[in-house]
């Protein structure tokens, strides 16, 4: 069994380094690779000869984390949900040795959720996460515009706020403090992130791994007022965002009317793990008779059919586990606010079952757990 992390974002053991957040993380990962304490690190990196692309990479070379190395572990960008990638990495077997991953809270939640769905293994995965100030939309990464955003990003984060240009999904996120990480990097609302950084070492191996870092021992959690304020602000934003989308059938038909059927939302969704989606399966390839029957009944039908059916079906399949990471909205070529709609429905589904996806491995997915004493009102 993997070592159980505490369910809190902050253990009582903390370390304040006298280097900036980025330098601290780079130094930590570099030393872990150099000493052989980890075999590899999954983190964001720049790609291409021009360094303009950003993708997750499995780094084994410590130099990637040098000051001018290609790794950019704290870049506010999510080209893929890292939780889904960790599942892909461990799908065919447990890791043979320790691998560290630097991911955001929603990525961590997705990974935990995927573990509950038996889509990989936690063994030897060393999770590093941070209090999250959100990421920028995918399109910001094009033409190098992401670099321009970074000063505003770091400024906002120190003030405990989210840059207005961050993804709406992130501005509406209420789960921005990671639970279950070995190390939590305190970013949100922390002052002087270019010259100091607080790490919370939540597991014994985290404490061991951080030994090479120099700094002062912290014996208290970070000041909660900033996180509290951010939570209130994000909840208000969330409410307004949810109010802006219709989840009734008419609204859904209108909004998903411009869906082009690429199913990119499903492909990038970390929770949608099926090898072949039901809605791409033989089952959903309609016979001629189906079209003729519908034509007879309605006088006209959309081809390809089942556009809203796909969305509702996918929602029914994954809403209880939806971590609200926003990848679906980001990838949609038709600019449909998929994530807002899914999060709104997910919030209500999850509240019904009093469930928080990806919070702790021990919390079972409601649809996989039978409880005799629930939903009496439905039974009568």
């Amino acid at each position, binding site marked *: 069994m993997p070592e159980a992390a505490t369910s809190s974002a902050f253990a009582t053991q903390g370390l304040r380094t006298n280097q900036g957040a980025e330098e601290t993380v780079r130094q930590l990962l570099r030393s872990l690779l150099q000493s052989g304490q980890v*075999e*590899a690190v*999954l983190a964001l*990196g720049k*790609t*291409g*000869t*021009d360094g*303009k*692309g*950003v*993708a*997750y*990479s*499995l*780094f*084994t*070379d410590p130099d990637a984390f040098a000051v001018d190395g290609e790794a950019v572990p704290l870049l506010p960008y999510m*080209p*893929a949900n890292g939780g889904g*990638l960790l599942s892909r*990495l*461990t*799908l*065919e077997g447990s890791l*043979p040795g320790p691998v560290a991953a630097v991911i955001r809270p929603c990525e961590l939640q997705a990974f935990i959720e995927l573990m509950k769905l038996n889509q990989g293994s936690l063994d030897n995965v060393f999770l590093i996460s941070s209090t999250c100030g959100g990421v920028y939309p*995918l399109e910001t*990464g*094009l033409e190098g515009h992401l670099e321009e955003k970074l000063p505003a990003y770091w400024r906002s984060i120190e003030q405990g706020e989210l840059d207005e240009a961050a993804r709406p999904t992130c501005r509406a996120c209420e789960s921005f403090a990671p639970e279950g990480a070995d190390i939590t990097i305190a970013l949100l609302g922390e002052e002087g992130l270019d010259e100091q950084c607080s790490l919370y070492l939540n597991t014994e191996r985290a404490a061991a791994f951080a030994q090479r870092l120099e700094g002062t021992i912290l014996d208290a959690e970070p000041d909660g007022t900033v996180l509290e304020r951010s939570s209130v602000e994000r909840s208000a934003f969330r409410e307004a965002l949810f109010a802006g989308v219709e989840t009734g059938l008419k609204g859904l038909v*209108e909004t998903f*009317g*411009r869906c*082009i*059927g*690429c199913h*990119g939302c499903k*492909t*990038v969704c970390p929770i949608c793990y099926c*090898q*072949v989606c039901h809605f*791409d399966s033989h089952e959903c*390839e309609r016979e*001629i008779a189906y079209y*003729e029957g519908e*034509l*007879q009944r309605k*006088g*006209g*039908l*959309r*081809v*390809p*059919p089942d*556009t809203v059916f796909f969305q509702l079906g996918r929602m029914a399949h994954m809403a209880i586990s939806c971590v609200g990471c926003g990848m679906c909205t*980001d*990838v*949609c*070529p*038709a*600019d449909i606010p998929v994530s807002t709609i899914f999060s709104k429905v997910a919030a209500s589904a999850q509240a019904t079952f009093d469930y928080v996806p990806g919070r702790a491995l021990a919390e079972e997915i409601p649809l996989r757990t039978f409880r005799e004493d629930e939903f009496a009102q439905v039974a009568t």
Partner: protein
Amino acid sequence: MNANAAVLPTKEGFEPAVIQWLKEALNRNVFEAVLIPVETPAEDSFAYLLIKDPKFLDLASPLPPIMPVQGGKAIGRLTMRGDLNKRVAAIIRPCEARAAIELTKLKQAHLTNLTLITLDCPGVLPLSDYLDDPAAGAARFREAVEQDNRSPMRPTCQICHRFSLAEAPATDLHIGTLGNDDGAAVIVPGSLEGERILAQMGLTEDGDESGNLPEMLERWSTRAEQLTATQTERRSEAHAQLQEQVAGADRLLDIFGSCINCHNCQRVCPVCYCRQCYFESTALKLPPENYLARAASKGALRFAPDTLLFHLGRASHMALSCVSCGACEDACPMDIPVGQVFSLLADGAQEALGYVAGRSVEDALPLVAYEMDELHDVEQAYVEIYREQEVQDA
């Protein structure tokens, strides 16, 4: 077959004329249903609708400003499981018809009882440009069409040289709008079925009241020929430039460097018909030891891996059937010029094998048909390499 062409009466304007004609065809039971783009309820996009009730045709748009779903794909979905029992007319653009023809050869669509009706295509706007402001997009599209201006269109439309079927209509009917002013159009049969439909609709040369059909046809084919020449030149210039940008693995890695592996390109591609793409199959899902070893050998492994392999693999799977429609590029959230790159690869591959994707159901797919007498260049080169190797080995 231009001799049997007819004039499409367009007093009310081109689009209303086509719709009126289709309504009449439905009423006369020439067709029992029509597959045509229709504006969505929110008026922010278009979708293919299979229509039996003529009232829905009032919402139809034969030449919408965008291509949210490739019509070949729509035809594939409709007929993948067998022949239609009802006579259906599909109003589509030339690249969509070419895709439908490729899918038919690949046994993924069935054209029985399906009448393909194409139109001279001015191109379509990039989906994202249009969605920013649909009303403004529609206006921009109309203006560009009036001015014969392809610059606001999708990059693949800007370099499209198969936008008309003046040379050889491969579809049952082709509606030609080029060369004649005021939305006047000729309707040209490309098959016996097309001729039969024109006769049934009372549209024959004899029925042309103005008596100027031969002149209209002449103006249409002259203009289409001119434009084809211009566009062909534009295409080769663009491809020559692109060739420099993509030559070699490093440059390809740069072009596809921002790919996020969403595979939207493959999903919207009309000729990528596999239910389960090889590159999403369990064949490429490997034990962690494999990924770690690959990472260790290079210092880093992009993860998920095999991004460029996916694009090159997909190209090798479908380039011979690629119709250069640009649907892939439209669906790419990272603005990768994937449609342009694939059109370059496709042109080279198809030229090497003397094949034009979607030209005709009669042309056999090159990899299906064996010909003794082809590709001698490659053969020769291979023999030379082989001999050299043999000598070295000896």
